[in-house]
């Protein structure tokens, strides 16, 4: 099999250059967006900010996979590989999630006493006059 034919037999080299440049600009812009999200009001609700950043990352990964890795121009076999991998990767992480939520609830007293403790807490009274100093 002619190896070069296997890649984008439909597209000419010239138009590809434009596509690649466009993808490049998109990637830069998306990086900028995720950087902006991290420092914007979206992070006030962290879950919103995190999801936004992950969505941006997925978009970037898709751009790379589809165009730089030529999957856009490949035939149906691409699904055979990508879908199981995606499925299993997501599944592994998803099934770990219940144990994440469960984890801090079941800390033993001993572990809680040695666990990391957030330093700044708004709920603690900051007025030292309320503490007896010796």
């Amino acid at each position, binding site marked *: *099999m002619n*190896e*070069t034919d*296997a*890649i984008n037999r439909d597209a000419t*080299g010239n138009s590809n*250059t434009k596509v*690649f*440049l466009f*993808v*490049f600009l998109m*990637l*830069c812009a998306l*990086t900028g967006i*995720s*950087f902006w*999200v*991290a*420092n914007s009001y979206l992070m006030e609700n962290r879950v919103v900010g995190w999801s936004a*950043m*992950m969505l941006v*990352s997925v978009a*970037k*990964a898709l751009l*790379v*996979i589809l165009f*730089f*890795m*030529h999957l856009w121009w*490949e*035939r149906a*076999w691409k699904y055979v*590989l990508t879908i199981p*991998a*995606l499925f*299993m*990767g997501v599944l*592994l*992480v998803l099934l*770990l*999630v219940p*144990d*994440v939520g469960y*984890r*801090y609830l079941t800390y033993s007293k001993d572990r809680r006493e*040695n*666990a*990391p*403790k*957030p*330093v*700044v*807490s708004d709920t603690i*009274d900051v007025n*030292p*006059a309320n*503490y*007896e*100093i*010796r």
Partner: protein
Amino acid sequence: MNSKANPSNETDATNGGLDGGSHGHIELKYQPAVPVPKGKLAVWLFLSTEIMFFTALIGTYIVLRFGAPEGSWPTPGDVRVLEWLGAVNTFVLICSSVTIVFGMEAAKQNKAGKAKSWLFGTFVLGCVFLGIKAYEYNSKFEHGIHPGTPRSLLYDRADLNYLSAVKSNLDAEILSLEKEKTALVSESVVPHDHDVLDTLVLIRAGLVQWTQRTVGEAENPMMRELALESLAHQINPRTSNPRVEAYLASENADVKNQIAELMGQQETVEQDVREMQERIDVLSEQLKAEQDDARKPDIESELSAATEASKTAATKATELVDLLTPLENRVSAYEQFNGLHEGLNEHFHLKLPMVIPSGNTWANTYFLMTGFHALHVLGGLVAFMVLLMLRLDRSRAGLMENVGLYWHFVDIVWIFLFPLLYLF
């Protein structure tokens, strides 16, 4: 056993392959299921195994990061992560992805020279990425942010273990500096710039020993915690911590009051000492001058009482000095160190243990993920070096594509690592 069923005869099978160079067997035809070369399919399969590898690493990160106690995960500033540097690295990798794509296009069009220069560009960008990574690692190691306990200076909370670690770390540092100083003096070299030693001695007296004393005497556990937290805050302030700052300020005022009070006492005592001295002088004059033996014992007893009182006053004075020294140390430490925005460690380039909650877990996961990613980058660079030694014409376009696929995968991993590690 049953030869009639064999579709072919038994002739040339055993002597096939004796003619040296060629394989000597027939060229078999195949019916591939996927319209891509074998190498490319294998690369895709390899990449799917890599997806699972990094899924496991990222899964670990998610479990450890989101399972950490609420609000304890360090912010980028705590662990010296520069978000913009990560963004620059992302940009570098994106650029390298583009260059290798153009290199492949050039190879496809049989422009070997152009392909090689694009590939060389990619190689350079990969090196830049690793260089920035090395710089980032170095800046963390400099601050004692290591994965693993023995070298890591990170503590999860300000407790007695932390205080004892600070104390032993500081003592060891002072001891080695003192040794150095003695060695210099004995070699009759004038020791230069031993401000550090003075600073360390002041830290020991004004911060560590003070905290130790406070913790030992405090009845209220809240006060113990505040004292320990304020020590951690002075060594390595994470964010502005109004609770600790207020505590420090009020404590300082309190200490100053105590000093003033003690100073007053000291004056009185000194006054007493002086008076006693005068009295002793007068009495001893009297004793010398006195001719009447009968009165001598009275004066002598008076004199010994005065001496006693003078001694007591002197003891009291030294006691007061003993009481005052730590307080004064505390005040001067407060005056000298409290304004420091970056904390002692940063300001004096010290390596005292720091409190960064979940800092160790952060370091473990950070170095795990970026480390394996960097190893993959390194692997890509090796592949580039091999490719750069070849002529990159049309016949090598497939090879270039395979290496490119791998490189894009490395890029994709970074696309996910960047927000996870720098921005979350």
